């Protein structure tokens, strides 16, 4: 007599996919552990050092040079806001040229998508390095690096938004006999405005974080100030700046969340 087949709770294919992905992750984990020689227990053993560092070297935080720090924060925040705004405007134009539903010319669509992917797949800190070659250290570089990555990110997100809203209501206006430009202003822009704004707010959150990092490698602003303290082993002052950065990030997140609820409701 044949054994009764085991009754499966999930489809066979799904189960196989789950097992396969688990095995892949496990293999990657082992390979990575072998490669980096990382021993988590070693770190846990040396936790004492860690606490010592936190309570002796980092705390209490100190705000050393009030003027320089205030100026740095202003530059960083301005950098993030300006980068978000300018890239939103640039990305909007390119998104219409790059979306499936509105692109006037197919090859142009491909080119735009290619450049957007190039822009966002190189991290902003590496863009900073490249830009320093031409522009030298300073806020210009930081702002440009943010602008480049944000554009790459926003173009893709805006294209996705347009593609999502397109479809059905677009069909209706085609049936009415409206032209391409009319469908853009009458259907696509109003329908995708909430999506655009939501991505814009998200890019602002991201930029507030990365503008400090871009600054640390030569983009100016508060990041450069912090990096200076760390290089001089002035950890109390560095901690003061880090806490300020955290404060700003939390503040901006709260603000964008509030705006999302208020504006996009």
């Amino acid at each position, binding site marked *: 007599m044949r054994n009764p087949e085991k009754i499966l709770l999930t489809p066979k294919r799904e189960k196989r996919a789950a097992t396969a992905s688990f095995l892949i992750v496990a293999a990657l984990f082992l390979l990575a552990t072998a490669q980096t020689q990382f021993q988590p227990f070693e770190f846990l053993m040396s936790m004492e050092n860690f606490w010592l560092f936190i309570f002796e070297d980092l705390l209490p935080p100190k705000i050393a040079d009030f003027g320089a720090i205030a100026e740095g924060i202003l530059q960083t925040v301005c950098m993030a806001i300006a980068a978000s705004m300018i890239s939103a405007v640039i990305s909007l134009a390119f998104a219409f040229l790059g979306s499936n539903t509105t692109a006037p010319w197919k090859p142009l669509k491909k080119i735009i998508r290619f450049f957007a992917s190039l822009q966002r797949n190189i991290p902003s800190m590496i863009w900073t390095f490249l830009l320093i070659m*031409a*522009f030298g250290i*300073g*806020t210009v570089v930081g702002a440009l690096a943010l602008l480049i990555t944000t554009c790459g990110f926003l173009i893709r997100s805006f294209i996705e938004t347009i593609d999502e809203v397109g479809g059905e209501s677009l069909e209706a206006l085609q049936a009415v006999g409206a032209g391409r430009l009319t469908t853009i202003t009458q259907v696509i822009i109003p329908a995708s*405005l909430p999506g655009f704004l939501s991505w814009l707010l998200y890019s602002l959150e991201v930029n507030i974080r990365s503008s400090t990092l871009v600054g640390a490698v030569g983009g100016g602003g508060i990041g450069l100030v912090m990096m200076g303290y760390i290089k001089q082993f002035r950890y109390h002052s560095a901690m003061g700046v880090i806490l300020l950065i955290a404060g700003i990030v*939390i503040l901006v997140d709260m603000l964008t969340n509030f705006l999302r609820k208020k504006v996009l409701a």
Partner: protein
Amino acid sequence: MTDLTDALGGRFPLPRETPEEDSSLLRDRKGRIRTKDPARDRTLKLFLAAFLVIGIAAMLLMKIDWLQFCEGLVRIPEALGKLIQIDFSQIDITFSSLLESIGVAVLSTVYSMVGGMILAVFLAKNLTPFKWVATVLSAALTFLRAIPSIIWVLLVLVCVGFGPSAGIIGICIFSTSFFARSFAQCFEEVPEETLEALRAMGAGRVKIFFSAVLPSAFTGILAWTSISFESNFEASAVLGTVGAGGIGYVISNCMTRYAYGQAIVAIVMVLLFTYIMELAFTAVKEKNGKIK
């Protein structure tokens, strides 16, 4: 009443529409009928205007040296010329540092996923055993998340010294907090009715979590994991630029040595890897979407 209107109508030309029709209609300053109620979009318009004003103010406040900017623009071709002299002489070191960066990203993602999952159970409002734990945890994690992972790496670097460990631990601090928040969100999206039904059947917390919550949150968990892995790789690729190891170190080292041809090889490697990852995750997402 009607007599009066008739009498007036004879002398004064009355508007074409009847009064009751007018009351529900909005008109603009020139008396044209409005096609939309301006009050309904007021917050949106206000926000757009405010953002524009603040953005322009930010541009003006930013200390941009326009001379430096213009000189830089002129120097772009020169810089490109330097970059284009591709130099593969350091390819073996570059490749092994790329592997190290990938390793750091994998390990930090796996460890923080486990950590984040555990924390998420205490953080999710519908699962947590004590409400106050969720509140305290949420505040602490918000703080951890507010500091970019690179800064965490910088701090950890000081106490554990140079090497991949600093990168893994530093990224883990940020990423665990990120996972905890997003997983908790996924768990909270599981409908209360489902949990209620299981509770009514007498299932315990642990059983409910593994049989109902985890499976329904699976798609969300997958999406967050892919997002987190991408950002963790980005962090591990650049943490070398602030003094830790990995491919970022090769890039910054080449840059300071003016070995631009070697730097561009490393940069293209990073680009290729992130691009392939993006393609892979998009493919998985699309396939998953089809099943759903």
